[in-house]
């Protein structure tokens, strides 16, 4: 079997579990890097910038009290970029005069750190245009977490425009079963205890009919139709495993939390090349409770995918 780069770099989302269960599956993030570059960098950056230009309201939201935290995010991500990818990014600093060079996009950007007027867009919007991740800022205010700013181009069926300003629990209230055993309280307490210097990471997975990264709630009518077209025969190509690598960083100056989401997609036929992954994925999808399958938007074509996986297992 040939393992290509797309498979090698694909984040395996299942651990060693055979069943899906809600949990706080976060682990300390090593190395503590907020961003990751893949070979899709240029394509995805281009797509992000197109979406931001054409749909600014959908892709970028911020409230006025977040500017300081936005600069903190710029500081963190720029230093991650030049620290982990020194051959692709350069940063020159002279006091507050910063010059950022992105060698892949061939851009040179000079600005005064902390001075909003020296950038064309807000700091969070600026830095988000240089990374594949979606960037969300939660501010801790009066004992709760609020989604106060975000740049979101690749949502898995949710709306930043709708959710901005909401608390963590309000945002997650549509998830079935999330309130049982006070799981929402526990995860909120966990998030509020995250400390600077100790970032966390977790993975989340779903299935997508189609290969679009920009599956916003606003455009569901366009991309949601593909769910009806899944058959046992086309599932391997049409259905994609979508994995979000999520990372959480405390911002010590503003006391906010940066939440980065890197969305990876792989057609099922590529993912199941490795037989143990095929068998584990079949077990998990087979046991997935109906309410989770409904929430993830899989129910309409789960049976077709299961039949496809059975066929594939017979071939091995």
């Amino acid at each position, binding site marked *: 079997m040939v393992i290509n780069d797309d498979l090698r770099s694909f984040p395996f989302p299942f651990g060693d579990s055979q069943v899906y269960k809600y949990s706080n599956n976060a682990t*300390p993030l090593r190395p503590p890097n907020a961003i990751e570059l893949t070979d899709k960098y240029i394509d995805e950056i281009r797509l992000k910038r197109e979406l931001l230009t054409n749909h600014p309201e959908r892709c970028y939201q911020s409230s006025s009290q977040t500017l300081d935290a936005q600069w*903190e995010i710029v500081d963190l991500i720029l230093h991650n970029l030049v620290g982990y990818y020194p051959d692709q990014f350069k940063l020159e600093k002279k006091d507050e005069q910063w010059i950022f060079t992105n060698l892949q996009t061939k851009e040179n950007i000079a600005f005064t750190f902390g001075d909003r007027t020296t950038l064309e867009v807000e700091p969070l919007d600026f830095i988000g245009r240089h990374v594949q991740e979606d960037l969300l800022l939660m501010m801790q*205010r009066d004992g709760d977490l609020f989604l106060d700013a975000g740049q979101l181009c690749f949502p898995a069926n949710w709306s930043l425009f709708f959710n901005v300003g909401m608390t963590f629990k309000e945002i997650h209230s549509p998830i079935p079963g999330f309130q049982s055993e006070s799981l929402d309280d526990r995860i909120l307490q966990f998030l509020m*205890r995250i*400390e600077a*210097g100790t970032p966390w990471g977790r993975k989340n997975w779903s299935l997508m009919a189609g290969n679009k990264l920009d599956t916003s709630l606003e455009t569901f009518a366009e991309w949601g139709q593909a769910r009806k077209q899944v058959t046992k025969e086309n599932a391997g190509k049409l259905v994609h495993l979508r994995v979000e690598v999520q990372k959480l960083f405390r911002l*010590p100056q503003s*006391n906010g939390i940066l939440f980065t989401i890197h969305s990876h997609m792989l057609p099922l036929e590529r993912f199941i090349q490795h037989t143990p992954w095929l068998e584990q994925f079949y077990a998990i999808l087979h046991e997935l409770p109906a309410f989770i399958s409904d929430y993830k938007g899989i129910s309409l074509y789960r049976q077709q995918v299961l039949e496809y996986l059975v066929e594939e297992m017979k071939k091995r």
Partner: protein
Amino acid sequence: MYRNSTIQVRVSNIQEETSTIKRFTLQAMDDSILPSFSGGSHITTFLPHPSGTLEKHYSIFNVSGKTGLFEIAVRLAEDSSGGSRYWHQNVQVGDVLPVSYPKNYFPVSFQAKHHVFYAAGIGITPFLSMMAELAKKNKSFELHYAAKSKQQCAFYDYLQNVFPNQCHFYFSNGDSTERLSPTQLLNHRIGTHVYFCGPESMIHDFTIAAKAYGYPSFHIHFERFAPRSIKEKHAFPIKMKKRDTELEVPANSSLLEVLLQNGIKIPYSCRVGGCGTCEVKVVDGEVIHFDSFLSEEQQLSNQTMLCCVSRGKGRLVLDI
């Protein structure tokens, strides 16, 4: 267990603020700068000690005006268990020690219309960074600060100089006519958040008074650096349900210490009942809570406890 990251810092300056309080300036090892921090933040310092590393928590601030530094103030405690004595007697300029990243369990309220800080003695320290943050954001605040005398009042000149219109001082030796009293809480308008830091008795009196005067509980904030003093500690037995093992917690040890000593890896952080990291589930038995993290409702449920400070009133069965 997973250990949080630390930063190596060098002591770059030691300043005697009063006869019992020293200010230590900590800087990064190389030319870099230390992380910024929000108002009310603290760090944990790790000090060498014959009985093992001493973990002590200190509010951080920056009164020297240079960015990228941590400053802490340490009062030499008469009954020091080693931390303040070590800082005062052993630490020299140039020394290198590990400290934690800034943490904040005592942030300023976002929704407050006005902030009032009540400090006694060394309790001033968290308010130094909080006032600096509020001043930068043009927010409304005032400080009421009690000390034995003007000489014993740390940062008196700094406060008079930087926040001349917001500070009120109270000296118990007679230098000022007024004494700091909880009845002053009656003077603040609706929308005020109040913050207390000082000895246990002071926090207790002000908190009780604020509640009695009708302050909503989420308008009342306080921070204690030592765990709430436990007048009489008793030994208690525990049973660990998942391991089917029994242990005895002696009167002079915490439950967390006993668990760690027995190789049970309970995550923990602050060790004074403030951060909630060491929470364990209680199956049976009555808990005496000494933490300031769990809500009253959570405490009364008797189903959970912070094992760094809280104890059993008799035998406890724990879900670990």
